[in-house]
C-alpha cells in the first residue's frame, strides 16, 4: 500500500529502490521485534464433597464453677481434667468443677463445655449428636452427658437436631458411689455428629 501510493506520486525509480530497501528493513525489524511467546494449558479436575466438622470449645464461663478449661480447646481431640475428688467432706481439688452429693452414698463431679459443628457444601438443616464411652467404667461409676448415661454398647443420642455453627453446651458428669475403691477414673468419650 505504501509502495503504490509513493509510485503514483513520484516515478523516480531511485527513490523507489530506497523505499523498497527501507520497507524491507522495517519488515525485518518488525519480525525481529515481535515478542516470542509460548502457550500451554493446565486442566484442573476435582469434585467437591459435603462435609461437617466437630470441635470442642471452652464455654464462655470457663474458669468458673462448673466450667473447667479444656486442653487443646478448639479441636476435636481435647482433654478435661476433673481433678481429685472424694465422698467424705465433699473433697475435691479442682476449683472449676461442680461437686455435689447426689444421695447419702453418691457424689457427682461435673464440668461443662461447648460442642460446635460446622458444615460446608451441604443443605443439611441440622445435625444429631451422640456419644459413647471407650471402656466400661468400674461398678458404681457412671459417666453421663446432660444426665444421659453413656455406655460402651453404642452411641447414645444426646440431641436429635442441633443447629450448625452454634455452641451446644454439654455437661460431663461422673457419678461415684462411696463404695468405689480409690483409683483413677479415665474415659475417652467419642462424640458423633451426623448431618440430618
Amino acid at each position, binding site marked *: 500500500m505504501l509502495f503504490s501510493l509513493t509510485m503514483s506520486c513520484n516515478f523516480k525509480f531511485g527513490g523507489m529502490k530506497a523505499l523498497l530497501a527501507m520497507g524491507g528493513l522495517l519488515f525485518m525489524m518488525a519480525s525481529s521485534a515481535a*515478542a*516470542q*511467546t*509460548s*502457550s*500451554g*494449558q*493446565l*486442566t*484442573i*479436575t*476435582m*469434585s*467437591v*464433597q*459435603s*462435609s*461437617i*466438622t466437630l470441635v470442642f470449645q471452652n464455654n464462655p464461663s470457663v474458669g468458673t464453677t462448673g466450667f473447667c478449661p479444656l486442653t487443646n480447646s478448639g479441636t476435636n481431640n481435647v482433654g478435661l481434667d476433673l481433678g481429685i475428688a472424694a465422698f467424705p467432706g465433699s473433697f475435691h481439688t479442682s476449683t472449676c468443677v461442680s461437686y455435689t452429693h447426689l444421695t447419702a452414698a453418691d457424689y457427682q463431679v461435673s464440668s461443662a463445655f461447648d460442642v460446635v459443628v*460446622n*458444615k*460446608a*457444601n*451441604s*443443605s443439611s438443616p441440622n445435625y444429631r449428636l451422640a456419644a459413647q464411652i471407650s471402656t466400661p467404667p468400674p461398678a458404681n461409676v457412671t459417666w453421663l452427658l446432660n444426665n444421659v448415661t453413656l455406655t460402651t454398647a453404642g452411641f447414645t443420642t444426646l440431641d436429635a437436631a442441633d443447629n450448625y*455453627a452454634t455452641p451446644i453446651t454439654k455437661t460431663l458428669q461422673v457419678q461415684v458411689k462411696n463404695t468405689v475403691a480409690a483409683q483413677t477414673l479415665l474415659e475417652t468419650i467419642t462424640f458423633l455428629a451426623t448431618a440430618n
Partner: protein
Amino acid sequence: MLKKYISIMRGVALAALLMCGASLAAQTTASGVINGTLINKNGISIQFDSDPAGVTLGAAGTSAATANFGTVSAFGPLAAGVTRPSVTAANFTVRTIFDVQVIQGGLNSTTYTLTANLAAAAPTGMSYKVDAITLTTALQTIQVNGAYSTAIPHNLDLVILTAAPGAGGPAVNTPITTTINFTATAN
C-alpha cells in the same frame, strides 16, 4: 657388446616407464561437495512439570497437562499433594503446587513474563488463583521475570464457597473441570 647392453637397458627402462604410465592412467577419481544449510530459528516453549510437593500431573513435561485434585471438602481428607491452607465460614481453599518450565533458544532474552487466564468463566462457587492472583478469563500477569530452563513452582489455589449447592456453593459429588491457559512471553 656395450652398445647392446645399453640398448637393452634403454628398452627395459622404456618398458618400465610405459607400465608406470599405464598404471597411473587407470586411477579414476570423483569428487563432490555438500552444501549444508541450517536455519536456526529462535523461539520459546512452555511445559508443566509435577512438583514434589504437589499432585502428580497428567502429561507432565508437556504444554497440555492435567492436575487432578480428587475429592475435596472443607473438613474431610484430601488427596496426596493437596493441602487446605484455609477454612473460613464462607469458603475454604485447597492448594497444590505445580512447576512451569520455559525454555528459549536463539534469543537474547534472559527472562520471561508468565500470564494466565481461565479458558471459560469459573464454575459456580469456585475461584482459581495462581500465586494468589485470582484468575479471570482475561490475562493476568503471574510472573514478570521467570528464569528460563528452571522448573519454577507455582501455587494453584481453588477457593470454594462453603454454601450449599443452589445457594451459591458449587455442585457436589460432580467432577468439575477447568482449563487455565498460560502464556510465556520473552522479555
